[in-house]
């Protein structure tokens, strides 16, 4: 079963919503796919407790209010080939044919292994925020937020508003880096105000720089964390550790389609031109998948990609000017929040690196290269398909880039069996 669209947008976060709206406004027939049940991606994930932000509301209305965009929630792209994506939903699978594809698959959190990180109660920082927004019981629970990046403050504030007792926010970047970041924020007054507002929300919780969590402890669930502080180690008793070290672009779909990637840094990103065109004809990329830059940049990029994908290039120049300023913010982020060597090497010999296959660090030692180690231990061969351990290994300097394969996510065998026939795919008239 296959349905034809002019533009298919993968990912319904700020970039994808903007792309879908722009393409639809230009008259294209648009499908918008997302693995989540609701649009908004991570940052605009709806909360069971709090109303959406004005920006989120506007974006949803603009994109989905007019009924010109076919929104497919709980749908994941399993395979893609020239002109077609194979998506799987909870009950069915479908092929969507496109003239243009916009990849707005966003980013996931960088989760680095450390002793005790597999304990129930240890989650990503954005991870716990996502869980809380969707009803996870946090009222009165003691939460330590740790890791790196401005996301920590946003996550901590969000957790606080969902009822958590935020005991501390621990940023691994040293105070000098944070001061530098704060001083440059005057260039982006919107961001500065946001940071101040977040800080105000978290009045009671100390925000400490140059500190990181070394280990997590508990019998069957988290009971306390050990912190490497600036004046020595100390423990914090808590129920949750919300810990994230930044964001990793979700490039797998782009990689499968053969888009050229910038692999010069620890985490690959998709390369595009100023119109968000990738190296593959008809395929565009917008937002965090091009490199971590924040939601305002993502929104502008999505708009550019949507116009370009629908063949309407006139509005693009003005958008490109606004984008340049936003992208400089991304560079500032990267400069200030570099990861300290110590947080990348917290795992000891017994620490599980591949959570799916239960492979400890000790099991990966003594091989000629990472590929041999993975073959011997099956590290990376579980359901997460190496997304968690792969990013962690990349962050610790083990840069073995695995070829991405179909299925892009675990998929029902019936989905693969109904899959489309590339050889017989018609070219568009």
């Amino acid at each position: 079963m296959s349905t034809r669209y002019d533009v298919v947008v993968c990912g319904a976060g700020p970039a994808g919503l903007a792309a879908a709206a722009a393409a639809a406004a230009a008259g294209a027939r648009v499908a918008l796919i997302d693995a989540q049940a609701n649009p908004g991606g991570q940052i605009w994930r709806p909360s069971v407790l709090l109303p959406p932000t004005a920006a989120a509301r506007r974006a949803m209305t603009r994109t989905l209010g007019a009924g010109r965009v076919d929104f497919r929630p709980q749908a994941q792209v399993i395979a893609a080939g020239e002109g077609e994506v194979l998506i799987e939903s909870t009950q069915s699978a479908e092929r969507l044919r496109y003239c243009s594809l916009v990849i707005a698959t966003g980013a996931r959190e960088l989760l680095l292994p450390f002793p005790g990180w597999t304990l129930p109660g240890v989650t990503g920082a954005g991870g716990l925020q996502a869980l809380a927004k969707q009803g996870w019981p946090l009222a009165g629970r003691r939460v330590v937020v740790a890791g790196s990046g401005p996301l920590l403050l946003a996550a901590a504030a969000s957790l606080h508003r969902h009822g958590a007792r935020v005991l501390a926010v621990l940023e691994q970047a040293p105070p000098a880096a944070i001061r530098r970041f704060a001083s440059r924020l005057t260039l982006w007054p919107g961001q500065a105000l946001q940071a101040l507002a977040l800080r105000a929300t978290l009045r009671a919780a100390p925000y400490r720089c140059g500190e990181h969590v070394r280990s997590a402890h508990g019998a069957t669930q988290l009971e306390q964390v050990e912190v490497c502080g600036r004046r020595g180690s100390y423990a914090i008793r808590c129920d949750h550790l919300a810990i994230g070290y930044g964001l990793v672009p979700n490039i797998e779909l782009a990689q499968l389609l053969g888009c050229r990637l910038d692999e010069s840094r620890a985490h690959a990103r998709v390369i595009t031109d100023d119109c968000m065109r990738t190296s593959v004809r008809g395929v565009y990329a917008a937002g965090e998948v091009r490199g971590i830059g924040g939601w305002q940049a993502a929104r502008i990029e999505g708009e550019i990609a949507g116009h370009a994908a629908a063949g309407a290039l006139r509005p693009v120049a003005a958008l490109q000017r606004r984008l340049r300023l936003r992208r400089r913010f991304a560079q500032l982020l990267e400069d200030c929040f570099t990861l300290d060597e110590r947080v990348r090497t917290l795992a000891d010999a017994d620490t599980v690196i591949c959570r799916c296959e239960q492979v400890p660090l000790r099991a990966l030692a003594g091989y000629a290269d990472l590929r041999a180690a993975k073959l011997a231990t099956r590290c990376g061969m579980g359901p997460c398909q190496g997304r968690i351990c792969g990013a962690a290994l990349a962050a610790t300097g083990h840069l073995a880039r695995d070829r991405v394969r179909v299925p892009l996510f675990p998929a029902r065998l019936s989905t693969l069996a109904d899959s489309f026939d590339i050889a017989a795919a018609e070219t568009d008239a």
Partner: protein
Amino acid sequence: MTVRLEVDGRAVEVPDGATVAAAVALVSPVFGRSSRGAPRAPLCGMGVCFECRLTIDGVPGRRACIEPARAGMQVRTHE
């Protein structure tokens, strides 16, 4: 508005819009066990890590953190 469902045979109530993960968290901090028997629970909260896999209405391998809770669902953890 709330949603009523069952987790490991126990009745649970969550707000409309909550995920199955939230429902399970009300009943059990442990979602399952690793192959070596270590307790596990959601990590990434966004459907990437697969630590939250549960059997929902008889279908195994469903990610609880991205699955909206619906009335009458029967959820089984691997505990």
